[in-house]
C-alpha cells in the first residue's frame, strides 16, 4: 500500500474492493458495479446533497451519509442497500411525493420523469403522508414553460445555469416548505430573460421546466407588438 498508488481499500456490501482515492462513494460504487439511486445529483454538476436519496450506511457514522458528496477513505465499510438504507430512501421518496401534484397523467415529462422512475424502483405508490401541496401559476417565456408546482427543489436548474452556462439566472429564495427557485427578485419567468439554450430544461428531473412547443414558430405581428396574456394550461 504505497502512497503513490491512488487506490484505497474499502468494503462495499461485504466485499473487499478497491476505489480511486478522491472519488465519492457514489462513483466508487458505480465503478464496482453497484448503482445507488440519486435525484438531485447530476454528473455535469457539483454535488448538492439536497435530496438525500443516495444515502448509504458507513460503519461508525452516527447518521447515514450521502454518497454523492462523501469521499471514500481507506478502510471505509459501506452498505448501500441495507434494510435501514432502503427504508430511509423509501420514506424520503414518500415525503417528496406527498407534496407533488397528482398531475402525472397530463405531464409532458411523464415517461421520462426521473422521480417517477425512481419511485417505481423504490416501490413507492400512493404516499402514506398527505399534507400541503405547492401551487404556483404556470409561467411562460418564449422558450420555457415553468410549473413550480411540480418543482422538487433539487437545485439542478440553478446549478446548470450557473456551472454549465455561466449565466446565473436562478437562485433559491425563502425557506422551509416555502422555498422556491426564483428569477431576479422573485419575478415571473414571463420575459425573454435568457436565450434558448435549454440547459435548465434538460437538467430538470421532473416536469417543472419544459420546452415551449411553439418556440420555433415565427411570431405573429400582434405577438411582436403587444404583450401576450399568460396562458394557463394543465
Amino acid at each position, binding site marked *: 500500500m504505497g502512497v503513490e498508488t491512488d487506490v484505497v481499500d474499502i468494503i462495499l456490501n461485504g466485499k473487499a474492493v478497491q476505489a480511486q482515492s478522491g472519488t465519492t462513494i457514489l462513483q466508487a460504487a458505480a465503478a464496482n458495479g453497484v448503482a445507488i439511486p440519486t435525484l438531485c445529483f447530476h454528473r455535469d454538476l457539483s*454535488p*448538492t*446533497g*439536497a*435530496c*438525500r*436519496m443516495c*444515502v448509504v450506511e458507513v460503519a461508525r457514522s*452516527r*447518521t*447515514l451519509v*450521502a454518497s454523492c*458528496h*462523501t*469521499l471514500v477513505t481507506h478502510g471505509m465499510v459501506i452498505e448501500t442497500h441495507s434494510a*435501514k438504507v432502503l*427504508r*430511509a430512501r423509501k*420514506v*424520503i421518496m414518500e*415525503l*417528496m411525493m*406527498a*407534496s407533488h401534484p397528482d398531475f402525472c397523467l397530463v405531464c409532458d415529462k411523464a415517461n421520462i420523469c426521473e422521480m417517477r422512475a425512481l419511485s417505481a424502483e423504490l416501490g413507492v405508490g400512493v404516499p*402514506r*403522508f*398527505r*399534507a*400541503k401541496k405547492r401551487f404556483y401559476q404556470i409561467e411562460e417565456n418564449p422558450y420555457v414553460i415553468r410549473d413550480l408546482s411540480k418543482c*422538487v*427543489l433539487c437545485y439542478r436548474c440553478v446549478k446548470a445555469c450557473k456551472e454549465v452556462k455561466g449565466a446565473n439566472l436562478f*437562485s*433559491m*429564495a*425563502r*425557506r*422551509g*416548505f*416555502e*422555498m422556491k427557485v426564483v428569477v431576479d427578485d422573485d419575478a415571473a419567468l414571463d420575459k425573454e430573460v435568457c436565450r434558448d439554450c435549454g440547459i435548465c430544461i434538460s437538467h430538470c428531473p421532473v416536469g417543472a421546466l419544459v420546452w415551449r412547443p411553439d418556440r420555433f414558430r415565427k411570431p405573429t405581428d400582434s405577438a411582436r407588438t403587444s404583450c401576450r396574456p399568460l396562458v394557463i394550461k394543465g
Partner: protein
Amino acid sequence: MPECRIVLRNCGIVDPASIESYRAHGGFQALRKAKQLTPDQVVQEVKRSGLRGRGGAGFPTGMKWELAARSPGEAHYVICNADEGEVGTFKDRYILQNDPYGLFEGIAIACHAIGARTAYLYLRAEYHHLLGQLLRALKETGDAELGCHIEVREGAGAYVCGEESALMESIEGKRGEARYRPPFPPNHGLWQEPTVINNVETLMNIVPIIQNGADWYKTIGSGPCPGTKAFSVTGDVERPGVYEVPFGTALAELVVDLAGAVNVKAVQVGGASGRVVPAAKLDTPLTFETVLGAGAVVVLDASRSMVELATQNVTFFAEESCGKCVPCREGNQILLHLLTTLQQRSGKEQDIDALRELSEVMMISCLCGLGQAAPNSVVDTLEHFGDEYYSMVRR
C-alpha cells in the same frame, strides 16, 4: 450544590462599560501570558484541559484548534458564534451584556493559537440592542491590545444560521443554508480557509484555562466533561435565570434546588431540539453523554401536555428549516400535520406509527443538525408519555 462561576466570573463584578474596570480585575493578563507562549503551546494547554464546545455538540476545542492551526491556507479565521438561536437560551446574551472584554480576550487568544488575524463575532439579529455596546467596547480595546481584528456581523434572524456551515455562508453574504460535510471548517471553513468556530461560552473558558492551567481546570466537573456549564432555566420555575454549575451536577439540583421548580412533570434540556427527561429521571447527571445541548432548560409542570410540547417544537422547526434537504423540509411539515391531526382528535393509530418511522428516518438522513434533532422531542415524549398520544386517537 452551589453555583460555581468560571464562565460568569466577571458578571456583576466588572463594569461592562469600562475597560479600566476590566483591567483592574486582572483583564488581559491571560492574553499577555498566551503571547509569551508559542501558538502550539496554547493549543496543547487547551487540548490538555479537555475543554469541550458549549454550542451543543461538545466537540473537543483543543482538537478543533489543532486541526485548524495545522491546516494550510492563505488566512485563518476565528468565528465566535453568538447566534444563540436555540429556544430558551439566553446565557450567551448574559455574557455579552456583562463581560464583553472577557469574551474579546478569549477570542484574541484563539487567534494567537491558530494564527488568525481576523475574527468574526456573529451576533444574533435579535441582539441588535447589544451592538452599540459591543462596538464601543471593541473600539476602546483596540486591535493593538488584542493582536487581531474582531469584526461584528449581524445575523438576519434565521435559526439555522447558528449552525456552523450556514453561519459561514451567511458571513460570506450568501443564503443561510447548511453545507455538506466533510470538508469540515478547520480545513475548509469561511471562504474555504481553515476556520475555528466556537460558541461564546466555550471562548469564555479560555482565559481561566490559560491563567490557571489545564490541571486546575480538570479538577472541576466530571471525567470526560471538565469545567462548568451555564444553563438558562425557564418554564414552570420560581427563579428563572442563568445558573452555572459543574458538569455532572444532577438535573434536580439545577431545576429544583437552584431554580425552585415544583410539581415537575418533565424537563426539556437543550431547547426545542433537546431531549425530554421525565420527572422520574431527574437524578440524571448533566453531561454531554447524557443530556445537554446548548444549555436551555425548560421545566414543564403537571399541567402541561406533552403532545402540545412536541407540536410547538415541530412548528418551530418547520418554520426554521432552511429548506435545502427533503427529509427536513417536507418531513417537518408532515410531522406537524400528523401532530395537529392528533390534537384535533381526528388522528388514527397508524399516524402514531408514521410519526415514529418518520422521526427515525429524519434523525439519520437530514443534511444538518437542525433536521436531525427536530424530531427529538417527538421521539422522547412518545417513549415516556406514549399514553397521551394514544388517548388522542379517534376511537
